[in-house]
């Protein structure tokens, strides 16, 4: 399937522009295309988040060049270009949502600022601060009271109280002095913004603004007077929106929320009409025709009806980074572009993959539409800050591939069956001829091995040759370490009493060795009382008296006083002495 489109986009797209160091940090919600000067040529408007804490800019591109830059006061959460009035020439206004405000730009100049109404303030909190202002209570009492309000109250505390609660004791007084005169305000933050046509569905009709806020509300704002036309509440803060319809007739707002659900709002009610519970968080929300397509964090793309009924689900090869609609009204084409973390952008119509575009970096925002004078332009920004512009070839036909593809490619790959050698075949033949003899020989040898093993085991047990003593009265364990290059070696024996609680007494160690080869400093040592579990190192020195490089075994015996047979025995293979003895 993909081999047909080698190079990813297979000649469907023309590379118009790629600037890998454009320095754009933005999301699909902060990118739009609009004819900002009214000359019939669309500009690209980007709300750049700068470094994420400073350097936020509103950038406008024309062709391949940056045309203008305006500094933004706060992080842009969303950006839309829309018509707010009927004045000629028809020039759209750009609205940038950031913090609690919407900043409007006309002709690339600041024009208007709208601030969302403050939220309801906790009355108890207000009373407490009032008392503080009048000096009735000291800061410490204030803190205690605020603390108790926070625990119980339905209405959350204001920023000021929260900050006050987080302060150390010595900063409280100063803080109260600084802030007590100001009225308490609670402001919310805009999380997403979109437009809704007011009364006509025309391309250049007047639109309202639809704003989702951190306080889990959705506001519809009239763009002329900037009054709130409608307010709707959701169970969780919205993250993405899709709006369709007209305010005066009928509209539908599909909202993805931070709790992983999708809610569908309609004109009549201020509460969600339908709810879709997704198995994972939505990353992208796009409406194609009457269906809503949702990309989820579990690497899936799902289709829903506008009433929230699930239609289909496909699994994608990588996590989704962003999604955008691809609408070509001139050709009646509607699809969805999905940016993936594996540096690909997939184009889907319903659940059929139509095209794959390979990109040099992970795409973070996608915008498709008319740019300059070209209708089918795809604009993408990448994680590294690059800006990419591609133009859809006018001759391209997107053929709907059959939804049931043929057998998977893997079916034609030969199985990797291990080959057998000639030797193997020969051995097989030999086994066929003399299988009985082989079996008998094997059984015979097996019996012999078992016998030999059993004999050796019995012998070891009988003469305590093992380094483990299994006797009930003195369960001991020993291992030996030889250190040094020679001719002097240090021999350390680690003796351990493995009994559960009983100590062992009256033990001694002696050695058996070739006296022509070795000399041991302390050939007989007494072992102290052995407490169970502890490892006792017992050390001595061994001198090699021979310079011929001959080695031998030294046998170590652990003896019990008054008993002739050893408790346990260890055989130490001595290493070759590397040096000469100084005699």
């Amino acid at each position, binding site marked *: 399937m993909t081999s047909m489109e080698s190079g990813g986009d297979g000649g469907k797209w023309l590379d118009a522009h790629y600037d890998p160091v454009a320095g754009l940090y933005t999301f699909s919600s902060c990118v739009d295309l609009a004819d900002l000067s009214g000359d019939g040529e669309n500009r690209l408007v980007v709300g750049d988040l700068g470094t994420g804490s400073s350097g936020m800019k509103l950038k406008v591109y024309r062709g391949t060049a940056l045309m203008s830059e305006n500094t933004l006061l706060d992080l842009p959460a969303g950006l839309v270009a829309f018509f707010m009035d009927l004045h000629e020439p028809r020039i759209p206004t750009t609205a940038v949502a950031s913090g609690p405000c919407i900043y409007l730009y006309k002709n690339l100049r*600041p024009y208007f600022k709208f601030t969302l109404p403050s939220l309801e303030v906790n009355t108890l909190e207000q009373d407490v601060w009032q008392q503080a202002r009048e000096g009735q209570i000291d800061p410490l009492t204030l803190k205690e009271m605020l603390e108790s309000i926070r625990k119980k109250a339905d209405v959350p505390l204001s920023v000021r109280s929260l900050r006050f609660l987080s302060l150390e004791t010595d900063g409280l007084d100063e803080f109260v002095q*600084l802030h007590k005169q100001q009225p308490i305000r609670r402001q919310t933050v805009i999380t997403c913004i979109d437009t809704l046509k007011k009364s006509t569905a025309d391309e250049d009709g007047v639109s309202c603004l639809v704003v989702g806020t951190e306080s889990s509300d959705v506001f519809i704002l009239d763009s002329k007077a900037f*009054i709130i036309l409608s307010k709707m509440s959701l169970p969780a803060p919205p993250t993405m929106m899709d709006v369709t319809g007209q305010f005066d007739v009928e509209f539908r707002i599909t909202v993805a929320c931070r709790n992983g659900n999708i809610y569908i709002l309609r004109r009549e009610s201020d509460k969600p009409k339908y709810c879709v519970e997704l198995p994972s968080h939505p990353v992208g929300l796009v409406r194609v025709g009457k269906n809503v397509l949702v990309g989820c*964090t579990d690497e899936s793309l799902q289709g829903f009806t506008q009433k929230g009924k699930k239609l289909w689900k496909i699994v994608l090869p990588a996590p989704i980074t962003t999604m955008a609609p691809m609408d070509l009204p001139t050709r009646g084409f509607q699809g969805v572009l999905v940016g993936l973390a594996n540096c690909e952008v997939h184009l889907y119509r319903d659940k059929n993959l139509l095209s794959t575009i390979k990109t040099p970096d992970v795409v973070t925002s996608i915008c498709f539409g008319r740019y300059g004078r070209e209708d089918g332009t795809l604009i993408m920004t990448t994680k590294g800050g690059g800006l990419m512009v591609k133009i859809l070839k006018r001759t391209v036909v997107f053929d709907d591939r059959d939804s049931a593809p043929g057998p998977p490619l893997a079916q034609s790959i030969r199985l990797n*069956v291990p080959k057998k050698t000639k030797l193997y075949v020969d051995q*097989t033949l030999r086994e066929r001829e003399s299988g009985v003899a082989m079996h008998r020989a094997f059984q015979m040898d097996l019996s012999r091995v078992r016998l030999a093993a059993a004999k050796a085991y019995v012998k070891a047990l009988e003469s305590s040759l093992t380094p483990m003593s299994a006797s009930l009265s003195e369960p001991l364990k020993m291992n030996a370490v030889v250190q040094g290059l020679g001719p002097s070696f240090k021999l350390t024996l680690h003796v351990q009493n493995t009994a559960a609680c009983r100590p062992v007494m009256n033990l001694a160690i002696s050695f058996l060795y070739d006296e022509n080869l070795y000399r041991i400093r302390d050939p007989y040592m007494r072992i102290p009382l052995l407490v169970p579990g502890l490892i006792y190192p017992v050390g001595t020195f061994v001198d090699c008296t021979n310079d011929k490089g001959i080695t031998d075994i030294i046998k170590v015996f652990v003896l019990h006083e008054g008993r002739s047979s050893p408790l346990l025995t260890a055989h130490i293979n001595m290493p070759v002495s590397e040096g000469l003895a100084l005699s």
Partner: protein
Amino acid sequence: MQFHAQVEDFSGASGVGSSFSSRPESSAQKLTHKNTKGFESELVSLFFHVSSCQERAPPFSEPCSPELPIVERRNWLIHQHYIRKDYETCKVIIKNQLQETNGMCEYAIYVQALILRLEGRIQESLELLQSCAILNPSSTDNLKQVARSLFLLGKHKAAIEVYHEAARLCDKDWEISHNLGVCFFFIKDFKNAEEHLNTALQINKHDKTFMMLGKVHLVAGETDKAIEVFKRAVEFSPENTEHLSTLGLLYLQLRKYQKAFEHLGNALTFDPNNYKAILAAGSMMQTHGDFDVAMNKYRVAACAVPESPPLWNNIGMCFFGKKKYVAAISCLKRANYLSPFDWKVLYNLGLVHLTMQQYASAFHFLSAAISLNPRMGELYMLLAVALTNLEDVENSTRAYEQAVNLDESNPLVNLNFAIFLYNHGDKTAALDQYQEMQRKVNILQDSSSNLEFDPELMDMAQKLGAALQVGESLQWTKPGKDSKSKPHSATLAKSPSAPLGTNQALGQAMSSAASYNKNIQLPAGTVASRQSLRN
């Protein structure tokens, strides 16, 4: 319902540069913006300064109080990065946000905790979630995550308590009910698990819940209930391959081959690379002797999961069915290498080696299989066949005796023993075994109507019957199918007095199919390709 909104307009055109200037009333406040640190860029605050100077000096009566940044102002950004799995950037933003708000931003802490948990630092994550709970004690999301962390730490009982607490704050939450069900499943309280999962399904249907409920029923041994659950699941989301293949396997287990194949086929239509479905469907094809089709399917699976022991076992048995014995041995040996303690692979290796007349090797594989699974009659029977061919009569007899003791339904075991006894001259004992075989055949025929016996088995049994002079008392097929057995008796009639081979025995091959998943216990799907062994 019109709200009064705060509207400010600007005199932007007259301003220096391109910044917003506010009305004179608010400019006094705006001037103080430059006191806040790092919130606005230098250029902006400079400009405010200029514009306010033009208009009015700040009223001196008001003390300067810096406007505090909104605590939640970066929540959306944190969320955007979190869902895009860009955790590094997310952590940087969270750090900034917590510094700015003095650690009062609940959502930032919450996401930080989730990221830590993803990184495997569950304990630290739990601590952060607890500090979230201090900031907002009534948040169900928070409680749910605390419970989830406890669950991941294996503290199921504690998790259940927290979930109950969360359920008190918001009932009718699918997630809480589902997770409660999972917790109860892990502490083996299947009744409660079932109850909670059903509640979850009533609130909202999710594939996950169906899967879990099915699992609960399977572990509790209620296969029929599990099938019902998966049927509902398939109805709810007809394209979920996991449900389809699981349902198919359950039908396979119940020997409803038609339904099993239907569901497995559906699963393969939606996802041709579904390993589970491929293996199960392949083993069914093998049963019907469609070795080439099965091999085609296995090729797909071999690309996806090249190191699967059951897959190579099945491929090996496909080659065996196609009489490519060397390839069969190669594949089975690979399966054995990948899973040395799987007795089915060893069984098959033994069988193939018997077929190849490599009795000494067969003996080793079979004895290895027996030491792994000492309770299976057929294994002892095969071992006995191998020993017979290795001329070890004494051990062979013992193996047969063990086989007959252990086996309950397979007539082949008794037939082979009978032949063995007959060949060694013990006619009376052979007759006993022959009668035992007849009994088993009758039971099998009673229990299922359309059972067909291997023609070779029937042939051999009839020869032996003639040799033992018991006559044709045994009906191999139901009367309706009598026509089919006639050719066999005809061939038999030609040589009624022919002596049985000096060392003749029947071995039954059983290729183990698709024990793909240890979670769902399937009995070895028996794919019978029977094989006779003659010397």
